[in-house]
């Protein structure tokens, strides 16, 4: 589903974020990417929806070489990759419903279907009663669940989450992880960057460990 072939990334300021990373994430896999801050977790994740391009090497998503993806096709790629951020990135001048509906509106889904699917997504994350409120009035955990509802409402085959529980307490983090597991169990490929080792251990999934831009370890699922 996602393949990194000898991927290196050097930023214009000279900082080398990744050194020759090669790895393969299969469809329906749930993968944690961990490492210290600055290890290159975010850079790795951001290459999947083409928020970042490798300096050398190539990234393939669903068999498509992203190096050869023309600019006008990038929206199509991003529609297939649901993204979740540590800072949620919600629109604060719009209701929860409108935030979650945005990916469907971008795709031109008919209005009646939008309502149905947004409510299904909000129901899944347990925020059905909050659809009319503004995100700013919600707690951090609730905002992150809005972010997750927005990422999954268009049923993308891939979910990419960059430190999704970075601002949440352990109990809320565990709940969020259970949500990701639910999506994985219906066949979604889930890639999560996290430095919460305790949480990762409890999840018993495949763990990719980065250190200063190099692949340090790749631990298969169920081995911890």
């Amino acid at each position: 589903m996602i393949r990194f072939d000898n991927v290196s990334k050097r930023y214009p300021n000279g900082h080398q974020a990744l050194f020759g990373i090669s790895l393969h994430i299969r469809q329906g896999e749930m993968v944690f990417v961990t490492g210290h801050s600055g290890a290159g977790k975010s850079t790795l994740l951001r290459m999947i929806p083409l928020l970042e391009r490798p300096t050398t090497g190539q990234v393939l998503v669903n068999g498509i070489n992203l190096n050869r993806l023309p600019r006008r096709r990038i929206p199509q790629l991003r529609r297939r990759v649901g993204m979740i951020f540590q800072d949620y990135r919600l629109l604060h001048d719009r209701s929860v419903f409108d935030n979650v509906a945005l990916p469907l509106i971008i795709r031109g889904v008919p209005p009646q279907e939008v309502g149905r699917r947004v409510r299904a997504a909000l129901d899944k994350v347990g925020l059905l009663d909050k659809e009319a409120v503004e995100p700013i009035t919600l707690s951090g955990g609730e905002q992150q669940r809005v972010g997750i509802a927005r990422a999954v409402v268009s049923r993308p085959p891939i979910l990419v989450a960059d430190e999704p529980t970075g601002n949440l307490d352990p109990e809320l983090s565990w709940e969020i992880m259970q949500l990701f597991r639910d999506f994985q169990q219906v066949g979604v490929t889930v890639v999560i960057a996290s430095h919460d080792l305790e949480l990762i251990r409890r999840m018993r999934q495949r763990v990719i460990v980065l250190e200063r831009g190099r692949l340090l370890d790749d631990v298969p699922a169920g081995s911890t």
Partner: protein
Amino acid sequence: MSESVSRRSPGRLRRSVNAFASSHGRALLGSLGRLWRTPLNTLLTIAVLGVALALPTAFLLLLSNLQGVTAGWRTDARLSIYLEPGTSPERYPALLARFEQDPQVAAVSLITPEQGLEEFRQLAGMEDALALLDANPLPAVILVWPAAGLEPQAYEALAARAQQLPGVEQVQLDREWIQRLAIMVELAQRVTLVIAVMLGVAVVLIVGNTIRLGIENRREEVTIVKLLGGTDAFIRRPFLYEGCWYGLGGGLLALLMVSVALLLLRGPAAMLAVSYGSSLRLAGLDWQGAGLLLASSVLLGLVGSWLAVGRHLREIEPR
């Protein structure tokens, strides 16, 4: 990707058309709603646009009114034929007949010295001056109106023929100043065109700058929509409609301003016309003119927003 393969089926097409229409409707109303929520900014921008659009419209209107007037004068371009002083009144009919029979002449009229004197007398302040004269110094005058659409050469030939007639002292062509007027009107036309182009550019720049600020204010939203897979067209659309709304608002305001200005000028203009013995009425914009004004305002708004959008949306890349 796999989506593009199945896109050709008819159901898919209808869905695409519906999605297209609903997306446009959303952008159209959404952009209007956004303008509505910041009424002060919107009104200020529209006021500036209205003034910029009203000025060339008013000039053009003034010009077309002026042209209407001078067109009337042009057909009035008559010859004044002054007879030698002391020409016997018995000779008038023969002279008049010469002109009446000319196919290039539309109408002929005679002003006898007595009638001329009477006209003078009616002008205020002339009474005393005339009292000083022993005899009537005025010659008889034959006024000749050439046939409509007479060529300038034929007009001059007519004047030359009149000059040859016995008893004619002088022929005066009321033409030179009309030519000068025509040149001045043409000059005014050019000036108006230049002003219209400059103010049109101003409208484009004003809308462009307003849209640029709008994009700047909504940077986060644009970023998120790009992250979620919004196409350039999808992101561009509400801004383009916003530009159209600004153009339409400015055009409507310009229409209003020009109409009010016309209403204020109509009274004095009518009085001026009466003093010249004319029943001229100041003409406003007809439906066609109003439609043209609104259409060009919307177009200028669209061009302005297109320029801003093209330049600035590309700069915003999600991070």
